[in-house]
């Protein structure tokens, strides 16, 4: 049995218990905690943003203080303690391998087995006199409350979805309102997901965009660099615009875009972006290479945007696996077909003199 380390940066002291010295934490976040959250949102060091599992004291809890259960993703832990100023709680942190509560519950790492094991290894039974736990509602996909009761003797209460609602939930005598039980997907909740998505997409894009620029230099009546500056820079810009449309505009406008399938929403924005870019550049439809270039990008941009939009299903809070399978049955072949044929048509347009 190992207790969480007292040497972790956010620990402000310790509490002597029959199990040994347990780390004490505060509901006040320091600038390092906020910086950590910002970095994690941008995907920097995100997978190592974890804390030791085990029992922590928030404030000055005693044997009758309530026990909250959380994940060992530091952002989840910080959100929890931040929402409980001036209160005394025990926080039992499960080993979810640095993953947030909902995702970990979906995978089962925030699950019945880990919870029962952690109750045991943390020595919780010796520290509190009651036998009750408060779990975040979103732990539901992984935890079976009735089995926890059977296996550990602890009864499980599901608290509100948002940690911020915990004080109201406690004050109401462990009662959550209907609103507290509904998972939203507001503009702000969508916006905070954008940086990580964008960073991930930009990594391959930083290689592909220069390649497109150079491909634009091929063929044509002018010299290589003159071509590249004209057709190649348009290609690179069109490609990057498609990424911004899929990874930024789509999440922001999600509820307002036509269609239910994310790919359909993505196709819609992609088509608008493609038409706008082509119009801005000035149509060149007198020649076959000109027509093919337009057609090529009318296919590539919506295909890319639709693909990125489709991948946003995993970040959303309301898509079902059955639905995603249904959507992908038509959208994935369409995206690959459009993207592939668009690329071939565009390259062919460059090679025609």
């Amino acid at each position, binding site marked *: 049995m190992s207790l969480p380390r007292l040497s972790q940066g956010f620990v402000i002291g310790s509490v002597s218990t029959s199990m040994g010295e347990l780390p004490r934490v505060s509901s006040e976040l320091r600038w390092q905690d906020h910086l950590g959250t910002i970095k994690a949102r941008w995907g920097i060091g995100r*997978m190592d943003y974890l804390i030791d599992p085990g029992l922590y004291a928030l404030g000055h809890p005693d044997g009758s203080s309530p026990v909250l259960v959380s994940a060992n993703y530091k952002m989840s832990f910080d959100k929890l303690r931040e929402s409980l100023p001036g209160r005394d709680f025990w926080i039992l942190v499960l080993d979810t391998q640095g993953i947030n509560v*909902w*995702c970990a519950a979906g995978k089962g790492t925030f699950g019945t087995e880990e919870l029962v094991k952690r109750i045991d290894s943390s020595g919780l039974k010796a520290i509190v006199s009651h036998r009750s736990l408060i779990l975040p509602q979103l732990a539901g*996909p992984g935890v079976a409350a009735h089995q926890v009761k059977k296996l550990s003797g602890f009864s499980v209460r599901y608290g509100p979805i948002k940690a911020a609602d915990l004080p109201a939930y406690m004050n109401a005598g462990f009662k959550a309102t209907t609103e507290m039980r509904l998972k939203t997907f507001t503009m702000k909740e969508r916006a905070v997901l954008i940086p990580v998505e964008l960073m991930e997409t930009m990594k391959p894009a930083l290689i592909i965009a220069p390649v497109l620029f150079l491909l634009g230099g091929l063929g044509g009546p002018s010299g290589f660099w003159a071509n590249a500056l004209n057709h190649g820079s348009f290609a690179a810009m069109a490609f990057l615009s498609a990424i911004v449309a899929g990874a930024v505009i789509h999440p922001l406008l999600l509820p307002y875009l036509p269609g239910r399938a994310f790919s359909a929403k993505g196709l819609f924005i992609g088509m608008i972006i493609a038409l706008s870019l082509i119009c801005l550049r000035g149509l060149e439809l007198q020649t076959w290479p000109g027509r093919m270039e337009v057609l090529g990008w009318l296919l590539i941009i919506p295909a890319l945007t639709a693909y990125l939009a489709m991948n946003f299903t995993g970040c959303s809070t309301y898509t079902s696996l059955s*639905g995603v399978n*249904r959507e*992908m049955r038509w959208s994935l072949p369409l995206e690959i077909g459009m993207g592939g044929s668009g690329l071939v048509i565009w390259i062919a347009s460059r090679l025609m003199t």
Partner: protein
Amino acid sequence: MGGLIYLKDVVTLKLDEEKCTRCGMCLEVCPHGVLKMNGKHIAIRNRDACMECGACSRNCPFEAISVQAGVGCAAAVINSMLGRKDGDCCCLIESETLPLAKKKTTCC
């Protein structure tokens, strides 16, 4: 906004009214208000709002609810089509043999 709704008529949620005892656990854990309490048992209020997270069926002590639970994530579906073992979406837990540098993140 009454909550976002994904595709219609795809969800695998099933309710066995005979087994339901009105304990209400499913109402507590459902994040989309899919179920409601009806006179004698639970009823499905808004099937299309279900995201198949599986919280209701896992927390039903009487096995009255069934759903093919899963994570609605296209990236995870693609990963598993490509035969990647770490076929997950938001929460990639890499096999421990992989070096740190190879750790990947996507979504949430």
